[in-house]
């Protein structure tokens, strides 16, 4: 136990360096995915046939194939077409595109839940469709989406581990190199798992705080009245 503790402390700086990159990748992927997901969900719910088709294709393509495959196509496949990105960019693109497809579906669910009634009410006082979406539908839909959407940051944080396969020096890559260096794969992976757990725990706490802070008085979820 003490040996493990010493091991943990010894490699903590190294692991934290990796964790920093993991967090950065998560934040970038989540942000890019949010913008993409928001656009795709709006396109899917409110777009015309053509726009809707585009959104559905994007969502199905990236939800229907493994993240690892998407990463490899971007990293190994695109250069064949003369398009080359750095490793970090490839990781960012794959994570952002993949997360966007999932976030689009979370948001679509709550856009539909807000319903036509609010749209009609907005239109009835002379607001345009776009204004009603922006000022009326989205502020409610985003709040409504938070509990389900909260899965995404946690899931994405763990998904970032795959990018060690294209040698981005995030936490999983650090684990690999520490394990090779110490010949102690079990100890290493347990230590790294603890770091992942700690990150997820903090992230969860933050998300719960966001959920509470954005609550509308009298507008709690059914059956969950405080």
């Amino acid at each position, binding site marked *: 136990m003490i040996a493990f503790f010493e091991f943990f402390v010894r490699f903590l700086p190294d692991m934290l360096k990796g964790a920093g990159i993991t967090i950065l990748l998560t934040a970038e992927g989540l942000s890019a995915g949010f913008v993409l997901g928001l656009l795709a969900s709006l396109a899917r719910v409110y777009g015309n046939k053509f726009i809707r088709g585009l959104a559905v294709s994007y969502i199905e393509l990236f939800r229907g194939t493994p993240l690892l495959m998407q990463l490899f196509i971007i990293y190994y496949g695109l250069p064949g077409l003369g398009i080359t990105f750095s490793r970090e960019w490839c990781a960012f693109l794959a994570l952002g595109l993949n997360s966007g497809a999932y976030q689009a579906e979370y948001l679509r669910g709550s856009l539909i839940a807000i319903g036509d009634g609010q749209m009609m009410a907005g*239109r009835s006082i002379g607001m345009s469709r776009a204004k009603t979406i922006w000022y009326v539908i989205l502020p409610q839909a985003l709040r409504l989406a938070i509990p389900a959407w909260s899965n995404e940051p946690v899931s994405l944080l763990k998904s970032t581990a795959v990018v060690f396969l294209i040698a981005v020096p995030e936490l999983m890559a650090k684990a690999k190199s520490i394990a090779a260096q110490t010949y102690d794969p079990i100890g290493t992976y347990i230590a790294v798992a603890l770091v992942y757990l700690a990150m997820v725990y903090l992230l969860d706490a933050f998300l719960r705080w966001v959920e509470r802070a954005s609550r509308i008085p*009298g507008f709690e979820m059914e059956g969950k009245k405080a």
Partner: protein
Amino acid sequence: MTNPILETRNLTKIYGQNVIFKDINLKVNEGETIVIIGPSGTGKSTLLRCINLLTSNNGGQVFLDEKEITAKGHNEDEVRQQIGMVFQNFLLFNHLTALDNVMIGLTKVKKMPKDKAKEKAMEELNRVGLADRADHYPGQLSGGQQQRVAIARALAMDPRVMLFDEPTSALDPELIGEVLGVMAKLAKDRMTMLVVTHEMGFAREVADRIVFMEKGSIVEEGSPDDLFYHPKHDRTREFLWKITELYGKKEKEKGAKE
């Protein structure tokens, strides 16, 4: 006789094979309160939605201040600023306080400065007797209060005409009175109103004219006295008799007159 504020000419709505209403001709003069009655499913609500262009029509025209608003290229959003609408299920913006519900049209559509918008919104809330609930969210208000905020929200836009689509149908009996009271006050202030309702007490007391609709057409229209006491059609008599019996008891209980 002055020209009507609102007029429909041969307005028709068809869903697929289903004729919702056909060739509706309706004239609403300035300051008039017209109540539309009739059995469920006769297209009364759809008619209101066709009038403020929330639903497209399949023929006919709608005129507001003698301008055809159903004409191609007419700005729908501008039309709806001039035609207020109150819905059966209130449809307040749930993420906004009562005050912000009333203000949002002023700031985002009319581009009014915030302080002026707030002043105007408070005036309207005062008019429906809810100035003291300005900071409450819809979820914290009773159904009757929510509907009064919805009326204030529509009034804030200074509409030429107000449409009411069964404004009390979703309310508990003891809350109906407060909403009808606000509406009766509006009618007295000569607001032009087109009201779909099953509240016969309100129709009899407040309406200048009652329009009886059935199966997608206007069967009969006239003053409350004409319709209640000298209906020309048997169907009108039958409907009024049935609905008065059904609702009469309830109205007596809550003291009928507002």
